[in-house]
């Protein structure tokens, strides 16, 4: 069980990507596959981000240690899906035209915010190794607090796209608020 945990979660985390890949070849992504891929990868990036942030509350509340062993991997999957999301955007929406990419970034606030979220995740992914963790010491924890603003920006990125129905954004927002709220309360308690 212990040995299987990580490979099993790894395989499960790849499923959405495998599903998209399969759909791309088998033509199962509908008439607008570009959009399907962008929406799906965006949502999975956000879901993994939420899962990553659920790890330490789960550990504290339950006392189990095993969730901690998954945290790095879940975080890296959040970044992985965010990268596929960004690459899809470049490929399908802007055709890798740098001018257009910059224009989108500058003119469309929801994209600016999504890009900022990605930029905040980048150093976290780079410093996710054990070696980096040791090298950075205390600063590693400080640096990795960037995940909180990244989550907030991702939620704003989602909410800003809403055409008329806030339902989905609200659900993600509530989860994000719970996870961030928990830390705030826990932090206050430990300082008292």
């Amino acid at each position, binding site marked *: 069980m212990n040995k299987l945990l990580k490979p099993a979660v790894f395989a499960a985390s790849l499923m959405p990507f495998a599903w998209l890949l399969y759909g*791309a070849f088998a*033509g199962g*992504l*509908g*008439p*607008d*596959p*570009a*959009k399907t*891929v962008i929406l799906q990868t965006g949502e999975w990036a956000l879901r993994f981000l939420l899962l990553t942030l659920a790890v330490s509350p789960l550990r504290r509340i339950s006392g189990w240690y095993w969730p901690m062993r998954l945290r790095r991997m879940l975080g890296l999957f959040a970044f992985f899906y965010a990268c596929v999301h960004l690459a899809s955007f470049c*490929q*399908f929406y802007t*055709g890798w035209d740098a001018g*257009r990419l910059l*224009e*989108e970034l500058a*003119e*469309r*606030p*929801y994209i600016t915010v999504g890009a900022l979220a990605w930029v905040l995740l980048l150093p976290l992914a780079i410093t996710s190794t054990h070696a980096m963790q040791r090298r950075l010491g205390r600063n590693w924890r400080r640096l990795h607090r960037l995940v909180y603003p990244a989550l907030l920006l991702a939620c704003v990125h989602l909410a*800003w*796209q809403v*055409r*008329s*129905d*806030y*339902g989905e954004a*609200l659900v993600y927002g509530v989860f994000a608020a719970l996870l961030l709220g928990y830390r705030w309360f826990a932090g206050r308690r430990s300082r008292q």
Partner: protein
Amino acid sequence: MPGRFKVPGIPSSEITPESVYLRRRQFIQAAGAIAAPGVLGLSAGASAAYVPGETALEYAPAAKGPLGYYTDEALTPRRDAASYNNFYEFGTGKTDPAAYAHEMTVDPWSIEVDGEVAKPGKLHLEDILSRYPLEERIYRLRCVEAWSMVIPWVGFPLSALLAEFQPTSKARYVAFRTLYRKGEMRGTRSFTSSLDWPYREGLRLDEAMHPLTLLAVGNYGKTLPNQHGAPLRLVVPWKYGYKSIKSIVRITLTEKQPATSWNMSQPREYGFYSNVNPNVDHPRWSQKHERRLPGSLFKPNRIETLMFNGYEEQVASLYAGMDLKKHY
């Protein structure tokens, strides 16, 4: 609510000119022959044989030439067009309408025409299907979300219907309403939606009278499937898709510019005119390009968006002297 949509008590032969009535018989026969042999003998009217998305229609082929009624661009396959729709009454996902629009009852159906007209009145489903000679129009459809399709509609010019009800000299705009029946439209039951139902759209009278402005009863040679706005919808090919209101139950001629749903929800993003215009961006989306559907990941089909969706020659004169950046 469904009580409002009654079949007429008077036999339709008494209120319909004979020539029109005869054409309707042709439709019934054509429809009956295809839908089910059993309905042929029914006298209840055309609606007895009406199956959305299934009943074959009789119509004249799209006229080629400078009018814009035809394009030789590749048609979007019927299956794609019927599986990727925006019809928020049934949910905001692109596949929701195909999944849930069948819950809407479209037979019986009636449309009320009122406001600034000399002869206000009602049209019933059978009148809609048989009163006007049908023709095909192959139009580009450009959604404000930057995707597009090419769809062969079957219908008749809105001007033919309006002329019949005789707009008064005060009439300057035309307002449209979609059916609003909560029990059959799950999207309207969402509490987190900012759209106000029923869905409303509008045109200036000269836009409404333009020969390109079509009332469609079908596409791909058959009656409209519910997700495309059965039994009757508007198609205004030079405007963003949401102007082409679906499943119409009311047409009101007005003196003042009518309120429209998206404009009420987000006035800065959706103007009354909503002409396709690559030079005026939506605040959250660029309008310079579009994805012509179906796309594939290997060939995303990204093309440049044309002024007035390529109908500039036909419609630009409607907006002569107007600042289209201001009147978006």
